[in-house]
């Protein structure tokens, strides 16, 4: 016979104001198996916990129900308390009579009765509880960081400086991300590259960081603390160990007219190239699609001019497998290109640019060496119209959200233009100015007041090109809703920030969730903003939602703290609330028939095949086995299993049925 203790909490007046706690304790005492039932004002306080501990010893309790608040907050409190009194912590259950009862009902008998019912169901559950032990797994203390933008760089450096090994994988030939493309940064107007490139070099030289560029993560097996990442290192056609980065090859390459991705099509590059002069590593790659040798079988000029002999035309792609304990996703974002906007010319007008293109024009290392010039004819534009919310906050375009960074960077663009072209006229069309952030509003005011940037509140309906001018048709909704027509020399669209190319595939590879816009999903929007739903996988930066540099860096340091916190432990302890496949005596070994229907439905890839063998190695039966490191206890396999062979520890079918029957029998 069970010996259960019930502890009814008043929660000050939170519960006792509407529930008669004394009556609940008394009626509960009548339930068979309950040997001790008391009430107390604050059960979570130190005396309250002591009360429980003493009762466990005195009444030899083998199960405890704390009738109080939601388990979210205080379940660990009471489990620890009972554990100190030598009761297995998983023999403790909470009956939530606060959120589920006292807070949502008026004072009265029915409310008290409901509280008693809730307590009774948990008493019946706890009768079926079994002692469980936390799961302990070892940790591989190497962190994988995917993406080498500012977020990835920050995360990698923080973890590496904490004394642990880091593997950074970057898809492009160089790290740096979007931040390396920016000219100056808001709200201080400090040079983006000047603050970023030293950090890029630090990553490259850090003894704890292994940098793998021009590579992608194509697989991830294992579980928290024990992942194995499969990385595809694309062939650079250059031996990185031999190459000195002298530049002879890219200076002599005859293919000189390939649109430069780093310049977002505004500049040209060669077939063997480094994306930008400060690239890290400073080792070129050969773009096989545009290289004369790969296309025609002739040329090899780069090989001839390479003194160290680093060119490797026959270099194959390489697949490497690296064991890691954690994964931090920092794959960043992209912005919609101008061809997304039919009303603004479908990308056909050369002088309609997106924000990143304008950054390149304003950058000292850009295609015009920092002079603002029209891509069409090289003239200095005398009037530039900046259109904010191009795509953002526009359900008709399928992008309902605010891209958040555009208000600030548009103010910055307008300022940079004015600083470079003193007689120029910057005009900004806007819906709202969202400048929340330290020194942000002041920055926008500075653009308006000191730099005389004209802000017009209204949308632009159409941009058309006529006689070398761009005619911008808009509306001024503050001054009587009048139509406005501006003859501009250049139009810059603050196009919506969107998830990066390949984000969806990567999420599926890593088995983490993503939202309808293909941004990676955090585990909790407020309390777990840098965790994913999969243990051991974290996210930082704009791969989660468009973020500015300070936010990206903060999140990156946040993930680093999480990783370092995990690596500080000897092993990982996890709640044993996981699914298990039952085991019975031979010859059946389990009711599991080995259909493996559970395998494809498991969102965490936690179901493995287990072979039951004789001593001489003959396979008797194949069973499903739930990997305790991977299982997150969602219960999908339990619901699906047709032979009812899987159960969720702590929430077994028996426990749940006991609760349900306890609730129903009294009606």
């Amino acid at each position, binding site marked *: 016979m069970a010996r259960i203790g019930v502890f009814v909490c008043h929660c000050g007046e939170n519960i006792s104001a509407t529930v008669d706690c004394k009556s609940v304790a008394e009626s509960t005492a009548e339930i068979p198996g309950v040997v001790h039932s008391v009430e107390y004002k604050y059960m979570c306080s130190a005396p309250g916990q002591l009360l429980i501990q003493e009762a466990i010893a005195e009444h030899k309790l083998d199960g405890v129900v704390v009738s109080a608040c939601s388990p979210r907050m205080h379940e660990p409190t009471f489990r620890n308390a009972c554990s100190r009194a030598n009761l297995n912590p998983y023999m403790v259950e909470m009956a939530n009579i606060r959120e589920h009862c006292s807070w949502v009902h008026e004072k009265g008998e029915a409310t008290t009765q409901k509280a008693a019912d809730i307590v009774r169901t948990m008493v019946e559950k706890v009768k079926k509880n079994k002692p469980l032990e936390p799961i302990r797994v070892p940790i591989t203390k190497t962190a994988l960081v995917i993406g080498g933008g500012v977020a990835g760089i920050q995360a990698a450096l923080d973890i590496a400086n904490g004394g642990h090994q880091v593997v950074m994988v970057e898809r492009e030939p160089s790290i740096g991300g979007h931040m390396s493309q920016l000219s100056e940064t808001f709200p201080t107007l400090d040079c983006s590259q000047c603050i970023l490139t030293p950090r890029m070099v630090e990553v490259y030289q850090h003894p704890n960081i292994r940098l793998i560029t021009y590579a992608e993560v194509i697989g991830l097996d294992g579980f928290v603390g024990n992942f194995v990442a499969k990385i595809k290192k694309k062939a650079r056609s250059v031996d990185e160990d031999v190459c000195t980065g002298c530049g002879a090859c890219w200076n002599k390459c005859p293919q000189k007219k390939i649109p430069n991705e780093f310049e977002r099509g505004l500049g040209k590059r060669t077939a063997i190239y480094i994306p930008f002069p400060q690239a890290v590593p400073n080792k070129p790659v050969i773009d096989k699609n545009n290289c004369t040798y790969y296309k025609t079988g002739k040329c090899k000029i780069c090989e001839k001019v390479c003194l160290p002999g680093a060119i490797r035309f026959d270099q194959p792609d390489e697949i490497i497998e690296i064991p890691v304990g954690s994964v931090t996703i920092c794959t960043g974002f992209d912005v919609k290109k101008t061809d997304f906007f*039919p*009303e603004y010319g*479908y990308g*056909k007008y050369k002088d309609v640019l997106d924000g990143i293109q304008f950054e390149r024009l304003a950058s000292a290392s850009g295609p015009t060496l920092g002079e603002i010039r029209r891509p069409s004819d090289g003239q200095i534009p005398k009037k530039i119209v900046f259109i904010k919310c191009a795509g953002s906050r526009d359900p*008709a375009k399928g992008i309902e959200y605010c891209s958040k960074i555009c208000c600030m960077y548009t103010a910055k663009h307008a300022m940079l233009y004015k600083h470079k072209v003193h007689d120029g006229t910057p005009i900004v069309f806007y819906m709202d100015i969202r400048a929340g952030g330290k020194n942000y509003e002041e920055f926008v005011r500075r653009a308006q007041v000191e730099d005389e940037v004209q802000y017009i509140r209204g949308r632009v309906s159409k941009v*058309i*090109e*006529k006689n070398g001018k761009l005619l911008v048709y808009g509306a001024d909704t503050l001054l009587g809703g009048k139509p406005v027509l501006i003859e501009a020399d250049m139009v810059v669209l603050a196009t919506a920030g969107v998830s990066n190319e390949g984000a969806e595939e990567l999420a599926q590879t890593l088995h983490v969730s993503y939202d309808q816009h293909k941004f990676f999903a955090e585990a909790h929007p407020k309390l777990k903003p840098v965790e994913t739903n999969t243990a051991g996988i974290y996210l930082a930066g704009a791969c989660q939602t468009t973020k500015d540099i300070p936010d990206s860096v903060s999140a990156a340091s946040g993930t680093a703290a999480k990783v370092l916190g995990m690596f500080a432990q000897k092993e990982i302890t996890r709640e044993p609330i996981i699914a298990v496949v039952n085991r019975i005596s031979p010859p059946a070994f389990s009711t599991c028939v080995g259909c493996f229907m559970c395998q494809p439905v498991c969102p965490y890839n936690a179901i493995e095949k287990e072979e039951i063998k004789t001593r001489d190695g003959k396979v008797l039966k194949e069973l499903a086995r739930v990997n305790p490191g991977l299982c997150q206890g969602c219960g999908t396999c339990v619901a699906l299993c047709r032979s009812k062979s899987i159960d969720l520890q702590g929430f077994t079918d028996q426990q749940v049925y006991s609760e349900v029957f306890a609730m129903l029998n009294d009606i």
Partner: protein
Amino acid sequence: MKIGLYPGCSLTGTAREYNESVVAISKALGLEVIEIPDWNCCGATAAHNLNKELSLSLPARNMAIAEREKMDIIVVPCAACYSRLTVTQHELHENPVLKARISEVLEMEYHGTSRVLNVIQFIEEFGAKAIAEKKVKSLGLKVACYYGCLMVRPPKILKFDRPEDPQSMEKIMASLGAEPIEWNYKTECCGAAMSVAKTKIVGRLSGDIVEDAVERGAEAIIVACPMCHSNLDMRRPDIETYKGKKFDIPIIYLSQAVGLSVGVGWNELGLHRHFVKVDLPEKAVKPEVAGAKPIDKKEEQVEN
């Protein structure tokens, strides 16, 4: 399959040639179109500004008749009628209570089962194959395809082509051998009914349209809306007054262009009815099939 034709008021008056040409090309392409018997006004711009029930009942009655006549398709050449019929169909589909109410008002069953198509959709869907087979002349013309405001809007309801930069007329014109130009004004407003109240506004708005087409090298503007046609064609003097220069670019209905290509006669297409004389260059209608006659210039002179 039975195809109904809803002409609407314009096609019996100012846009007679649009009606004539739609009927003529349907015949030439081997499609039988039957005018909806006892059709009434679609309500145009007036009804939906005054009374919602009336604005839905008027188009619904025409569609109810078409249903009764077992017409699977209703071809609606006028862009305004097309808009009214499509919007009505959409609203009644979304709101079954209103649908029941309108049936009650009409004292007729309305189910919304006939598909409503404009002339572009009609030619695209049913004419493309026949055009390829029956094309006898290639239109060697640079054309500006002009859609106007109503043909593609509101996009959520019409779900037809790309609202900001439609392409369907261009495709049809290219199949006739013409060269559609890239231009800026294909969905801009022509001034519409301001033609009656404030003609100057039409001069300005339509003037921009005509001027851009001419500046970009178009030799003809192709339209599929009677309102657009009358503003660009009949209001040409106002356009010229506003712009301070002469324009002789002709405005041709899509159906007329198709008709020319498949060998329908000049007058049968109503090409002699326009205010701005349709004087196409020699190269414009060159015979593609042996024996096909070039345009009979004499026929042009015949008054109807």
